[in-house]
């Protein structure tokens, strides 16, 4: 595996800052907006964004939750060793008439987001749903899904993998691109 770093250090933090500023432009003080991180890897970005927003706006009460989409996936029984084991969903409020901001780390085929749109319905009918991602793998969508807020855009081929590391879990904030050696 050949590994190249797409984003790290101060640029990483500036990107998160910029995403927060863009959110504030559209959601002001988040009176009627909620942040939902998609399990398993989107929750770290959601936590970061929430903490940063609360610091910037000097408020403490941004509603946030974690959404697991395992039971809503469209590849159940179609993949060998497909993911079976669910993560927890923690949404202890109703999203009826709320503006929902879905957050995930990497947007690739769009299938996870489709499942999330399905899963979120179990908690009510939102006024609107927006999508924020840290990495948008361009030109690789299987479904007509586009993000509203993008950290960075990446051109990659299917055999490559894009991984986001977090201070909390891997001791370093960075986005890396993995390429098979024999490419």
């Amino acid at each position, binding site marked *: 595996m050949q590994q190249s770093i797409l984003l790290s250090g101060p640029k990483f933090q500036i990107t998160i800052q910029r995403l927060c500023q863009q959110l504030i432009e559209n959601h002001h003080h988040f009176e009627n907006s909620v942040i939902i991180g998609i399990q398993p890897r989107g929750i770290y970005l959601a936590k970061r964004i929430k903490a940063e927003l609360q610091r910037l706006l000097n408020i403490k009460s941004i509603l946030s939750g974690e959404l*697991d989409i395992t*039971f*809503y*996936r469209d590849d*159940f*029984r179609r993949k060998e*060793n*497909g993911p*079976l*084991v*669910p993560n*927890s*969903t923690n949404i202890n409020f*109703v999203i009826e008439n709320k503006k929902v901001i879905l957050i995930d780390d990497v947007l690739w085929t769009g299938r996870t987001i489709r499942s999330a749109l*399905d*899963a979120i*319905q*179990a*908690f*009510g009918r939102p006024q609107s749903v927006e999508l924020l991602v840290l990495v948008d793998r361009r030109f690789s969508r299987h479904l007509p899904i586009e993000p509203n807020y993008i950290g960075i855009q990446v051109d990659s081929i299917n055999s490559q993998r894009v991984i986001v590391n977090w201070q909390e879990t891997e001791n370093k904030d960075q986005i890396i691109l993995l390429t098979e050696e024999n490419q």
Partner: protein
Amino acid sequence: MTETAQQLSTRHLLGIKDLSKADINLILETADTFKDVINRPIKKVPSLRDITIANVFFENSTRTRLSFELAEKRLSADVINFAASSSSVSKGETLIDTVNNILAMKVDMIVMRHPYPGAGVFLSKHVKAQIINAGDGAHEHPTQALLDAFSIREKFGEVAGKKIAIIGDILHSRVALSNILCLQKLGAEVMVCGPTTLIPKYIQSLGVKVEHNLIKALNWCDAANMLRIQLERQDINYFPSLREYSMLYGLNKTILDTLDKEITIMHPGPINRGVEITSDVADSKHSIILDQVENGVAIRMAVLYLLAGSRG
């Protein structure tokens, strides 16, 4: 860390005997998530939307059949129900023929209850579908044992190290055998208690304690699982009268109050009020009988979901 599998090691659920500790933990942890799902305003997920399940019941059932049916519907599976009493079985059709005819209609999974021990194992060797045993004679009732373990884990935080007494008609009970195997795999201590005639010979070889005195058993345990006297399976008299059984092994409030500690009361249902348990105990705060029923749906959702996902 508890030992948890990423996938079940079996294709069918025929008995607890075939499951590993890691399998059981995977089922219990998946059921945690499903318990969450069934307590939401919208209690349904689309996981099994392309799967058809037949509930084939050759023996009467209320809880288990309704619980399976609800679990299937909340996973968005298509469900057909079959009760032997109103079917062509009474015209002389064999088990394999009956099931193969159901499978010819493109059914993926069979949930079966049958009066003969081993019926599920037999079927799994002769048909293609995945089989889930919903009780086979006096042999096993795996989903009941799993939901009992789930309820104990929910009540006490963990199963390991807990002392569970199973009291009543052990000889004719599939719940007892599945419970013993499941609780032991999870590290609990198990005692069986009942009249000598209703305790199978050599049951000690399973590593359980045997006690014939109700008070001693209750004083030993953290939770007591009260079983019904299965009169429909008893071809001879195992005790002089139900009244005498009730006097010696029936649990009432007076006995519960004389114990030096509080214990949790479980019952797999159906309850014969006034025989093995009185109403004031069954409806008391010590009883988790209705929690067991609620957990049953979550456990069955977990089992169906994991088996469907492991289809080879």
